């Protein structure tokens, strides 16, 4: 079985994953995951993308002097 308009589902599912629908969202998510293969796959893919964005995206190291120079600037502005 699958939803009649999966592209609508995808947008809704993303909002649910973003936590914008609260408890209601959890129920919808559960139902879609059980009943619809495309929705199931979309959720898993979206979760994987979020996960790698959060854990693998290289962080730019803070330049050593930046914090110091901001503090100096503020000191002078006082």
């Amino acid at each position, binding site marked *: 079985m699958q939803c009649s308009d999966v*592209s609508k589902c*995808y*947008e809704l599912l*993303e*909002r649910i994953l*973003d*936590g*914008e629908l609260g408890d209601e969202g959890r129920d919808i998510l559960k139902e879609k995951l059980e009943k619809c293969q495309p929705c199931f*796959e979309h959720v*898993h*893919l*979206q*979760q*994987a*993308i*979020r*996960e*790698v*964005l*959060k854990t*693998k*995206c*290289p*962080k*730019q190291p*803070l*330049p050593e002097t*930046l*914090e110091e*120079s*901001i503090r100096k*600037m*503020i000191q002078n*502005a*006082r």
Partner: protein
Amino acid sequence: MSEVQRRKYSQEERTSIFDGEFMPHIDSMYNFAFRLTFDEDDAKDLVQDTYMKAFRFINSFEQGTNAKAWLFRILKNSFINDYRKKTKQPATVDYQEVETFYNSDDVDYQSTTDLRAESVRDMLGDEISNALNSLDVDFRTAIILADLEGFTYEEMAKILDIPIGTVRSRLHRARNLLKEKLKGYAQSMGYNTEEEEE
């Protein structure tokens, strides 16, 4: 930020807000600035400008509200107003135009192969990062705010000065575009992509 500055915080309070609520976000701010400018010096300048403005307009910051969102909004505005003008990057397409363009539904179903969650998990950080960086600045920003920084739609609406409905649709378009980029990487790197089964 209002032009009229009421005298609200004492010297000590200002120092404590600045050190306690603003400075802890410097890492996120710098990373955001870097992903906007792709240049260390420009990112540094942008963060410095932002902190300078935050200090000057500190009286318009309400204690107890989200300092990080407040700072991100200043940084984003500085980028648009002061910085975007002087960069050599090609002029970006107008917001509205981009959104209308991508608002056609076919962007959801461009290809017959689909990207697998496992392939995404196998990708290298640099590949993920390059895919993100290749997005138009407005879509890139949406993903950064939502997924890297964890802002809510409501906070994003304030940071970007757009209605929540626009946050929602922009983010959805951004995710579709990012997915297409990742799919491109997956295919070119020989990761497993799956033919759509009927």
